[in-house]
């Protein structure tokens, strides 16, 4: 059942909310600056809320079902986070209020920075980046600023493994760098020889995701980092997969120089249908001065038994400001709440169980689906979604058929180095019964792929919508309702 567009609802003159008439004398409106038509909807409150509630019911979500979307860490978003972020003292704090009035907000940011330093093993953190991709941009700009500050201007290339997220090369390009791709070896690691061949005096740095997008811990991580450092380059860690490492190992201890963290993955801030994210950037000691800012800091050291006065500081050689104000503060409150409820033992348990769940699924599925890199995995694993003896079926068909069983499909066709990749990340918050039901569905689909491939081609069958005509969407571009065009 197709839900009408908001513009197809309502009737002229209707409104969903009334406002009081101004209690001041009216000023003269500047007639030469006024607009004509204002083509907005005219709907009632119930009508609008019913519309958006119905729309919500067309979504799969973590609260409605299993969401093993690899690399996205779709774990449970604790309900309490939604309450704490909305506490009125936080929700009504203006970002430009004097620091004395916003000590609560500053305390949240300061402590979250301290905790992320402890978890990452790095020396300083800026919470400003708005999302993971912006945290990456910050990281690469920091690398650039570090070399420039040393007068080392000939370094113009960034190395990126072929298993990396597309944001890595895009962030490097946005920073004016030339990108060189490094292939993976037979065990899914960075190919050390290929890496060493590129480690010369034009090397600015390496962007490394560890565990990588195959869900594998880099077996030669220390040699990889040593090779880059040996050539005078810096190592950037993509923290997309940090959910595997909490209390397991700290990127800073491994020698990473920069790391971004996705609060919306590892630290349970909700994905919100595609944002807001939050991508704090953490750096080692030699990069502290280059962080984006301002960052929360201690303005007045505490006297005995008192709290310090928190304020702002701008790092000395900062790459500057990456957005207005201070970052996605509402997400900082949620991540703070989460870490507060976990403590060190809880965080380690998170990663242990995320990795246990992934390995459990891997062992249950690997006989039926080809597992190209058969090693103990971390928080996710990548299977091939195709069979030589069922040539008509592709990863896409498997993904679509999973919806009929009530599951969100895994990430598919990524990483690019696995044919018909199905990238599965169960997260620690799913129980065994859910994983078993998922395994059962996957096995049933594998069987169908061989006995009744047409069932997969037509999938999904039980969802409210069938496969969409994406070609038509791109060719006959309709990006808004007609009625809004003035």
């Amino acid at each position, binding site marked *: 059942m197709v839900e009408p567009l908001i513009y197809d609802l309502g009737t002229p003159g209707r409104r969903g909310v009334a406002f009081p008439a*101004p209690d001041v004398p009216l000023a003269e409106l500047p007639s030469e600056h006024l*607009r004509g038509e204002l083509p907005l909807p005219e709907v009632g409150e119930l009508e609008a809320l019913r519309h958006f509630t119905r729309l919500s019911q067309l*979504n799969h979500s973590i609260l409605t079902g299993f969401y093993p979307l690899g690399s996205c860490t779709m774990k449970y978003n604790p309900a309490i986070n939604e309450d704490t972020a909305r506490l009125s003292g936080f929700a009504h704090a203006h970002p430009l209020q004097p620091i004395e009035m916003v000590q*609560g907000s500053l305390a949240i940011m300061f402590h979250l920075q301290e905790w992320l330093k402890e978890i990452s093993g790095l020396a300083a953190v800026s919470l400003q980046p708005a999302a993971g991709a912006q945290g990456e941009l910050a990281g690469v700009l920091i690398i650039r600023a570090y070399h420039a500050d040393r007068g080392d201007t000939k370094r113009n290339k960034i190395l990126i493994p072929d298993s990396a997220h597309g944001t890595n090369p895009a962030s490097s390009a946005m920073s004016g760098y030339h990108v060189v791709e490094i292939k993976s070896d037979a065990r899914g690691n960075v190919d050390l020889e290929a890496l060493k061949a590129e480690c010369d005096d034009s090397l600015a740095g390496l962007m490394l995701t560890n565990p990588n997008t195959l869900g594998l811990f880099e077996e030669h991580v220390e040699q990889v980092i040593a090779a880059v450092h040996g050539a005078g380059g810096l190592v950037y860690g993509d923290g997309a997969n940090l959910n595997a490492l909490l209390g397991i190992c700290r990127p800073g201890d491994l020698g990473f120089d920069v790391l971004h963290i996705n609060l919306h993955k590892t630290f349970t801030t909700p994905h919100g249908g595609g944002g807001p994210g939050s991508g704090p950037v953490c750096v080692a000691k030699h990069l502290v001065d280059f962080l984006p800012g301002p960052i929360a800091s201690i303005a007045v050291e505490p006297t005995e038994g008192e709290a310090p006065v928190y304020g702002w500081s701008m790092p000395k050689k900062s790459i500057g400001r990456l957005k207005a104000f201070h970052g996605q503060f509402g997400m900082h409150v949620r991540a703070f709440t989460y870490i507060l409820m976990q403590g060190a033992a809880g965080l380690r348990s998170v990663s242990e169980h995320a990795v246990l769940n992934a390995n459990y699924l891997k062992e249950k599925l690997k006989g039926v689906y080809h597992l190209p890199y058969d090693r103990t995995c971390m928080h996710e694993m990548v299977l091939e979604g195709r069979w030589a003896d069922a040539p008509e079926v592709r990863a896409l068909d498997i993904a679509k058929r999973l919806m009929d069983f009530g599951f969100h499909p895994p990430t598919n066709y990524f990483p690019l180095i696995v044919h018909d990749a199905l990238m599965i990340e169960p997260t620690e918050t799913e129980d065994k019964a859910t994983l078993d039901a998922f395994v059962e569905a996957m096995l049933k689909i594998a069987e169908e792929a061989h006995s009744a491939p047409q069932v997969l081609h037509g999938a999904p069958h039980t969802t409210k919508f069938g*496969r969409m005509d994406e070609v038509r969407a791109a060719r006959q571009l309709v990006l808004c309702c007609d009625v809004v065009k003035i």
Partner: protein
Amino acid sequence: MTKYTGSFVPHSEAERDEMLKAAGAKSLADLFVDVPAKVRFPTLNLPEPLTEMEARGELESIAAANDSTNEVLSFLGAGAYSHYIPAGVDTILRRGEFYTAYTPYQPEISQGTLQAIFEYQSLIVALTGMDASNASHYDGATALAEAVNMSRVIHRGERPKVVLSPGLHPHYRATVHAYEQGFDTEVGGEDSDLSAGPEALIDLIDERTGIVCVAYPDFFGRIYDYSKLAEAAHARGALLAISVNPTALGLLKTPGEMGADIVTGEGQPLGIPLSFGGPYLGILATKQDYVRSLAGRLVGETVDSRGQRGYVLTLSTREQHIKRGRASSNICTNQGLMMLAATVYLSLLGKHGLRQVAESCFHKAHYAADAVGKLKGYKLKFPDTPFFHEFVLESPIPTAELNRRLLERGIIGGYDLSLDYPALKNCSLLAVTEVNSKAEIDFLAETLAEVSRG
């Protein structure tokens, strides 16, 4: 032994043992042999974990350490505004089907998010007079930086000059500088005369200029018609980007009508709480000609295999996951939930409500400007330029001191403009919206009169 509440990891011990066995591991620690032993299992120095009940208490007490705008009368704006948010907005935002979903990669089971984005894109087109809007960006500052990025793509890197009006938010200008540091971009215009109006920027535009960026209303609340600037930019082959306050567009002429090529803006006034500066909502819209250079997600209409109308992410060949190092931007997601807030807000207010809020802001700000501008020792800095809901007040004493005295009397004063504009000594930027009553404005005027006496 540390106490661990374990509330979000559901495994029983029996299940854990069974799963370990299936995974071929003797213990959880066995799963991590690939991690170098000398850095494996560090001791993290973090506070002892709290239960939900304890955590809520702790967070409540931290939030209470703020004296926020719900408790203290405020005239602070400068890019973040207090507006009334109808209860229905949060009713929708708190639906788990929306807030716990991710980017709608699988359209069959994401039509809720996709249709909401399509409706958002439509609402932004309606407000701005552009042809297409993206699915949203991080905030007003980053949306402006992406407009500059778009200019580089559209001009294929051949026009390195960017003209930024000094009337753009200082944070937005700083963000453009940060985004451009890897390129040979020449940014100019920021030190132009603050009283000169937009025509002063025309002389700065030449055949090497890629884009001219202005704000509407500008950072000082002023309303300008940018039509002539648009003509001049276009005559020299440059683009015009206008950074908007969407509330003002409930009342004012659209940027489309003035000839803008790109519209950016901060969507926070559309139903999003102040929340200490974020998450907010970046508006990014453009003309038909530049749709393929637009950064970020786009949703388009199509049909499904059963002939039903539906929506999908489209034109994704622009994006990083396809184009990688050749993508125009690295942005992956949008500002999903904030986009939804704006969509519900604009739907509830509608044609009449948004106009009413915009007019109410206008009338109250003008009442306030009138009241404080005639106080002895004070004057309006730009008395001859029309303004929307913010204005610049010049005071007899430095703003830091003025605001300290106001705060002692229970008022959060305006933004201290001398921090960013040395020429605006003793000047503050005051914002008035529909939430401020006449009595509050009168109290501001009385208090300003009182504190200037020392």
